[in-house]
């Protein structure tokens, strides 16, 4: 694999720190805003949901999830790494790792994809709600394509996030993988708890 290809899954050998943080933040905010316009929300590490949220809520949820993930990975990195870790490197690389999600927001700008996804979701819920199913075969096909795009973007984002953690904290192997999985699961749980508390009016 040559260096050009490598940079798609590990650009952090060349870019980290404040530069990565600024670029990553601009792209991530654009991702969330574009997503919000088209009814897509990013409430966790790997969560991508069809949801109509006010702009501030969408930004708040997405940024909170990112900050929680960065904090947990920084703490885990401090515990398992023998190197000195700069918080700006962890924050910058992990923020930049979110770039693939822009693909999801851009595809979501094509109304067919979100419309078909909503139709199929309603159709699948029709057995519970008692409403008639209105999704066509084309809707299922379009939603399948959308799901594949989301999966590709999510896997790419996860690979980038792991490489970001590995490079910024200088951790490799089993410890790094276990630490990353723990951080991802913890972040999802905390984000879910926050959303639930918000939904129930506790927050």
């Amino acid at each position, binding site marked *: 694999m040559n260096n050009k290809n490598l940079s798609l899954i590990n650009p952090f050998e060349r870019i980290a*720190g404040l530069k*990565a943080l600024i670029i990553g933040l601009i792209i991530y905010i654009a991702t969330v805003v574009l997503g919000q316009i088209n009814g897509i929300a990013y409430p966790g590490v790997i969560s991508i949901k069809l949801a109509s949220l006010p702009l501030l809520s969408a930004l708040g949820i997405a940024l909170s999830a990112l900050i929680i993930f960065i904090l947990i990975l920084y703490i885990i990195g401090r515990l398992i790494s023998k190197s000195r870790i700069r918080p700006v490197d962890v924050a910058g690389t992990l923020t930049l790792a979110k770039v693939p999600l822009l693909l999801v927001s851009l595809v979501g700008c094509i109304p067919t994809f979100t419309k078909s996804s909503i139709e199929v979701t309603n159709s699948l819920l029709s057995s519970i709600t008692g409403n008639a199913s209105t999704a066509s075969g084309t809707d299922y096909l379009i939603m399948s394509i959308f799901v594949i795009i989301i999966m590709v973007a999510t896997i790419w984002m996860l690979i980038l996030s792991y490489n970001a953690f590995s490079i910024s904290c200088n951790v490799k192997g089993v410890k790094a993988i276990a630490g990353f999985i723990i951080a991802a699961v913890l972040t999802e749980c905390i984000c879910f708890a926050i959303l639930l508390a918000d939904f129930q009016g506790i927050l």
Partner: protein
Amino acid sequence: MKLPCICPSCQQQLKVKSLRCEYCETEVNGLYTLPLLAQLSEDEQDFILKFVKSSGSLKDMAKQLNLSYPTVRNRLDDIISKLNNYE
């Protein structure tokens, strides 16, 4: 010509048996351990040279090598770990 440091047969550290002066043909024989820095790979030795020439600034090194700061720091930490193992 590159100085070999690892035995191609059993992968153990090579030692220096003979040194020769090319001017007066004096030959010194013995069994000398290679200096720590000479036991590192060519890339690692080159890295250390660049590190010294940058006055120990990882930031300047990162700019020079067109690499990120954590990448340069990680390479230095790997070399430090290797040297500690040799000691």
